């Protein structure tokens, strides 16, 4: 009888912890979307793309390397939300192919074996044509910029290989001063990665300054 209670108790405990670990989504802000608002003034003529491996424990080890494939796309607002309607409710990890009508803005691949400094670990593409590639009728406020990536990082100090593929999505504009009504054309797209001492991967599309090695 005691054994049965212990069994049930431990199982319940495991379930409680498991559900607590599953609750890990947070939001840093929100905007209310108005459908198909024509806003060509929120489209920059050119975009800069900055991909950074911010930090990894084995940065100075000569056997460490990082390899990145990336594509930057524009997705018309109507096409994006039509595709999202076909995704499963809740969380999903779609691929670029699930967004018909996307326009390729840039793509590339690089394997870097010299990654000792932050400069070595930064890929910068300046002046990518943007506005001219988007038909005027599709220059709406809530269209989408999508960064698709596949990253592979070998940290020789940890003797660990981290791989990940995914997408980041953002709007063609950015807010200034924390007010969702104060917006300007976005001119930079960021893609950041970092390897933690336990071998897990940080990833973000948060804006960062040139010499900053803190995680953002």
């Amino acid at each position: 009888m005691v054994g049965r209670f212990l069994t049930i108790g431990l199982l319940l405990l495991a379930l409680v912890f498991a559900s607590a670990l599953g609750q890990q989504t947070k939001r840093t802000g929100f905007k209310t979307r108005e459908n198909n608002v024509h806003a060509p003034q929120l489209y920059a003529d050119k975009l800069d793309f900055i991909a950074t491996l911010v930090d990894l424990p084995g940065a100075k080890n000569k056997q460490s390397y990082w390899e990145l494939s990336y594509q930057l796309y524009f997705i018309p607002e109507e096409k994006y939300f039509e595709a999202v309607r076909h995704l499963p409710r809740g969380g999903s990890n779609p691929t670029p192919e699930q967004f018909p009508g996307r326009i390729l803005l840039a793509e590339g691949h690089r394997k870097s074996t010299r990654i000792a400094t932050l400069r070595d670990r930064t890929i910068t593409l300046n002046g990518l044509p943007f506005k001219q590639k988007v038909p005027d009728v599709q220059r709406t406020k809530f269209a989408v910029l999508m960064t698709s990536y596949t990253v592979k990082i070998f940290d020789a100090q940890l003797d660990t290989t981290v791989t990940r593929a995914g997408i980041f999505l953002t709007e063609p504009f950015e807010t200034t001063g924390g007010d969702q009504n104060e917006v300007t054309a976005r001119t930079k797209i960021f893609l950041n990665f970092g390897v933690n001492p336990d071998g897990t991967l940080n990833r973000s599309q948060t804006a960062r300054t040139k010499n900053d090695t803190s995680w953002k």
Partner: protein
Amino acid sequence: MKSLKLRFVLMCLATVLTLGLSYAAAQAQCADIEAGGTVYGNYDCRLTNVCGGWCYYSCTCSDLRFGASCDDVLEEAGFELVSGPQC
């Protein structure tokens, strides 16, 4: 008594295994898009940052029901508001 001890040890192992698997799953679970609808309106949240075991999203809301706010939608959908990633 011996059987009870054995069962206890086995259950402890099972608990540790469950916790470990749950943690690993949680780490890998940041979906690139979280989208759906609530009684207050629709939401579309895009992953912006993964760190410290947390998934941070930036969200837009649409088709808000009369009197509802985007906050209502996102709270209903289970998104906790934070000022920024704390990693």
